[in-house]
C-alpha cells in the first residue's frame, strides 16, 4: 500500500527549497520548515513505535507528546516538531532502514 504525503502546503509554496534525504532518497523542503513539516509534506510517517512497530506521524506538534522523534542517519535523533530543517539533513523513518544502518 502506497503512502501519501500527510501534510498539504498552503503557504510558502515558492520559498527557497531546502534539500534533505529521507531513507536515502533525495527530497526537498522549504526554508522555514520544521523537520516534521518537511518529512510529512512528502511522506506519511516519522517513526515506528518501539513496542508494536506501528507507524507514527506526530500528535501534539508542540513539543509535549514526544511522539515525533526522528532518527538521523548519523545515529542522532531530533524532535521533529520543534527542530528547524537544515540543508543536507538525512532522516531514517522505517525500521528496515534503521536495522541496515545499525549493521554498518
Amino acid at each position, binding site marked *: 500500500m502506497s503512502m501519501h504525503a500527510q501534510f498539504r502546503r498552503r503557504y510558502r509554496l515558492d520559498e527557497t527549497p531546502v534539500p534533505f534525504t529521507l531513507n536515502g532518497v533525495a527530497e526537498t523542503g522549504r526554508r522555514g520548515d520544521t523537520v516534521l513539516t518537511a518529512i510529512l509534506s512528502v511522506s506519511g510517517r516519522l517513526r515506528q513505535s*518501539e*513496542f508494536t512497530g506501528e507507524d507514527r506521524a506526530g500528535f501534539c506538534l508542540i513539543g509535549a507528546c514526544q511522539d515525533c*522523534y526522528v532518527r538521523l542517519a548519523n*545515529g*542522532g*535523533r531530533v524532535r521533529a516538531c520543534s527542530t528547524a530543517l537544515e540543508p543536507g539533513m538525512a532522516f531514517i523513518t522505517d525500521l528496515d532502514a534503521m536495522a541496515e544502518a*545499525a549493521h554498518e
Partner: protein
Amino acid sequence: MSRRLSVDVAIIGGGLVGSSAALAMRKAGLSVALVDKGYCGAQASGVNYGGVRRQGRPPEQLPLSQRAHRIWPQLKAMIGIDAEYVRSGHLKLARTEKDFAKLETYAETVRDYGLGLELVAGSGFAERFPWLSAKAVGASLCPEDGHANPRLVAPAFARAAERAGVTVLEQTPVREVTATGNGFAILAGDGVEIRCRQLVNSAGAWSDRFAAQFGEAVPLTRIYPSMVVTEPLPLRLPMSMGEQGGSFYGRQVARGNYVMGGGRGLPLGDPDYSRPSVTAASSVMQRAIALFPHLAHAQVIRFWSGTEAEMPDGNPVIGPSETTSGLFHAYGFCGAGFQTAPAVGEVLAELVTEGRSTTPIQAFSIGRFRKVAVETAASL
C-alpha cells in the same frame, strides 16, 4: 472505619520482606495481618534498582542470599508473575589493576559459597563484552545473578498473601503498639485494633521508631537512591553492571530502557520524601556514555528516588528482639535487600513457627548495636 482483628502474627511494613513473610507464614498455617502506612512495596522495595545480585555481598550474607537465589525462579508459581526476573548475569568491572585485584580477593574469599564467579581480563575481555568500551582492566562475572522489576515484586507478594488469606491493610499507619504480656496490641489507621501473639517489625526506614518503643534503639539512617532511566532503546546490554571502586550500576530491561544509578538522592524537608540529585544523576549519565558508546544519542526520560534504611556496618537487622518475647526485627538492608528479601520472609516464618532459622543469621542480630545504643543514651 473501626475494625478488630485477632491474629497469630501481625507484620508492620508491607515491603518485600513483610509481604513475603506474610505469604510464608500463612502457608505455614498461621493467621496473619499485614499492615502498611501506604501501599505495599511502595518504598525501598519498589524504588530500588532491581538488582537480583549476590556478587559483592559480604560472606555473612551469602547463605541467606543463596537461599533467595533458589526462590527467585519460582516467583511465577508463588505469586503469579515472574516480575521480569532474568538471570542475565552480573558483571562487576574493574577500572584499574588495583580494583581487579580486589575482585580476585573477593572471589577467593567467597569461593565456598557457590556463586560461580568468573574473572575475565586481558586479551579476551573486549571480545567477550563487545558492548562495552574497552576502558576496563577486567571484570568479575556472576553468571546466575540478574535483575527484576522492583515495582512489581512486593505488590505481587502482598496480593498473593491476601489471596492465601492474609488480612492486608494498606493506607493504615500504625499509631500505637504495646506488649500485653502474652502478645501485642496495635492501634492503626482509622480505628483498627489488632491483637496478635507475635509481631514482625519490617517497617524499613520507619523501623527504628518501633524498635525504640521496645527499648532497642538502633543506629538506622536513611539513604536515597538516585536513579536515571532512558527511553526504550534496541537491546544491547545483556547483563546487569556494577563497578569495583565506582558507584555506577546499570541494566537494560526487556522493554529497552536503561535503568542506571549511582550516588545518592537528597531528602526533602520531610525526610520521608526525597529527590534524585542532579549532581549524582549527571555523574551517572557521564559514566554511562563512557561505558556504552552506543548510548551517545540516547535520551533520559525520568529520574527517581525513594527512601531506604542503612545500618552503620552494612548489614541488616534480622532476628528476635532481645527485650521482648514474640517480637522479630527485619530491616536496614542498606539499599541491597531486594535479592535477599524473599529468603528473609521465609526465615521470619521459621522464627515465628519454630523459634529458629535454618539459615545462619547471627551476624544480623540486633544485639550487635546494644553497646552503641547504651553509649548514645549515655551521651544524651
